């Protein structure tokens, strides 16, 4: 049963048709790799799912209910979280503060609500343990490696018990060793029944974790098939247009 279903999604910016009748669905515990060249419409699609943009036409259903996201908070409240390419981390805050940003746990100090650091640190520690990451909750993010930073960003989605996690280029611009770390994080999410959508340019990474691959070309979905029935060569051909569709 699909948890997220996009039907006939189109989006135009003035005269530019960014997305054209895209149908896509995502199951719980499934990892979908979304691929496509620059400008193919990947980011637009993600932003529509995340509530940054409203689609020009078409509908989104979440857990079999029609939903409309007017702002990112609407999507987050439903359980859809995005991990942006830049990870949206504040370098000057600790890992725990980043995870709890906008969702801080407070306790009352007299009649004043104050931050409950011990509770937030403990919860953050548990989250990192679940993700099998060695990130320290009380450490400032600017001191961290690419893999640890990714763990903090993904940690946010764990906090809200997100059902759908969108990862925008999770393995771009990090070292090989850290890529393995990030792929492991994705596998942990899948194991816990989270539906994951990865957007990436890096073919081997996508094939390493994805159950299914979807390809966008010039705003149109040209392929949507099981990863083990496809190949990097075929996907490359689909992206460039050497093969029309598959």
């Amino acid at each position, binding site marked *: 049963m699909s948890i997220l279903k996009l039907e006939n999604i189109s989006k135009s910016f003035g005269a530019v048709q960014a997305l054209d009748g895209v149908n896509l669905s995502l199951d719980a515990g499934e990892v979908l790799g979304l691929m496509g060249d620059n400008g193919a419409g990947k980011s637009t699609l993600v932003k529509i799912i995340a509530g940054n943009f409203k689609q020009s036409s078409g509908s989104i259903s979440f857990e079999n209910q029609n939903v409309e996201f007017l702002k*990112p*908070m609407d999507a*987050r409240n439903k359980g859809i979280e995005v991990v*942006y390419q*830049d*990870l*949206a*981390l*504040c*370098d*000057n*805050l600790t890992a725990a*503060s980043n995870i709890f*940003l*906008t969702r*801080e746990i*407070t306790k009352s*100090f007299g009649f*004043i*609500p*104050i*931050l409950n650091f011990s509770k937030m640190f403990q919860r953050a520690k548990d989250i990192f343990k679940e993700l099998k990451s*060695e990130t*320290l909750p009380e450490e400032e993010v*600017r001191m961290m490696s690419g893999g640890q930073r990714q763990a903090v960003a993904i940690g*946010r989605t764990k906090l809200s018990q997100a059902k759908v996690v969108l990862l925008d280029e999770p393995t771009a611009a990090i070292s090989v060793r850290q890529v393995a770390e990030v792929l492991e994080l994705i596998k942990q999410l899948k194991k816990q029944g989270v539906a994951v959508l990865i957007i990436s340019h890096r073919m081997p990474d996508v094939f390493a974790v994805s159950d299914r691959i979807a390809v966008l070309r010039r705003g149109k979905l040209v392929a949507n098939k099981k990863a083990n029935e496809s190949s990097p060569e075929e996907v490359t051909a689909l992206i460039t247009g050497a093969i029309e569709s598959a």
Partner: protein
Amino acid sequence: MKKKVKIKVSNLHEIGLLIALISVLLIFGFSTENFFTQRNFMSILRSASYVGLVAFPMTFVLITREIDISVGPAVAWSGVFFVILVKWFEFNYTFAAFIVLAWGLFLGYFIGIARTKLMIPTFITTLALWSALRGYSLFITEGRPLAISNKPFRYFFGGDVLGLPTVTWIMLMVFFIFWFLSKYTVLGTNIYAVGGNPKAARSIGLNVDKIKIITLMITSMFSALVGILFVARVSSGNSTVGEGMEFDVIAAVVVGGTALGGAVGTMTGTLLGVLFIAMISNGLIHWGIDPDLNKVVKGIIIFLAVVINSNVTFKKNSGNKEE
């Protein structure tokens, strides 16, 4: 789990500043006759307190990557406005103070709305206010002080309580509140988040505009408060007070370790910065240095502080840049 011994960079800066503060104290103390006197310390504390009252909220403004340079004229106009209300309109003092503080909040709100809705940099809006508020204060008072006679008000708010200037007690209380806000509250964390990465803060649903507006409102309100306290001190609403005060405030905050680029800064650092600037100003007078040269020295200090800030201590600390 690995355990690393770390000294936080912010602490390092504060320790350095504390050492500098003590050194300056000793240098002035041993090289002049009247520096180490109770009377002089009261004087240093008093001038530091007026600056401090605005410097703490200004720390938040700088952390969120904004600035307010209208402090001096805002202080002057608030004092003039306060006296106009009690003298010309015969309002009672409490009610007049309430209106002036509310006016301060409105001023900050205006700066904030200009910044977040009209995209006008706070530097420009407050530069315009810097000119307009001073000009209007001079115009309406014709450049003359408007005297007030209420003795209890003057003696209490302009005088001393329990061995310290009243304004110093107020400043210490305000310091504690801001220290607490910065360390233990959601608002404090949000302010640092906005400074650390505004784009990220916005994308995960933080109301960046609201936080910027709040910090600007608080700062202007404290400028208004200082304006009222100045009236108590000089027994009049005076359109020429607070000249160059924006410089002292911003210098104190920056010397205290807050980065002009935002994200980094502490209230303890600002407190030390405020004391440092006040002590230097005072000590140079005791050395018999011309007040005009005093300004040159302060200029050099703020420049050196920024150099140290951006190149040594906080190289890795300035965070990602947005806007």
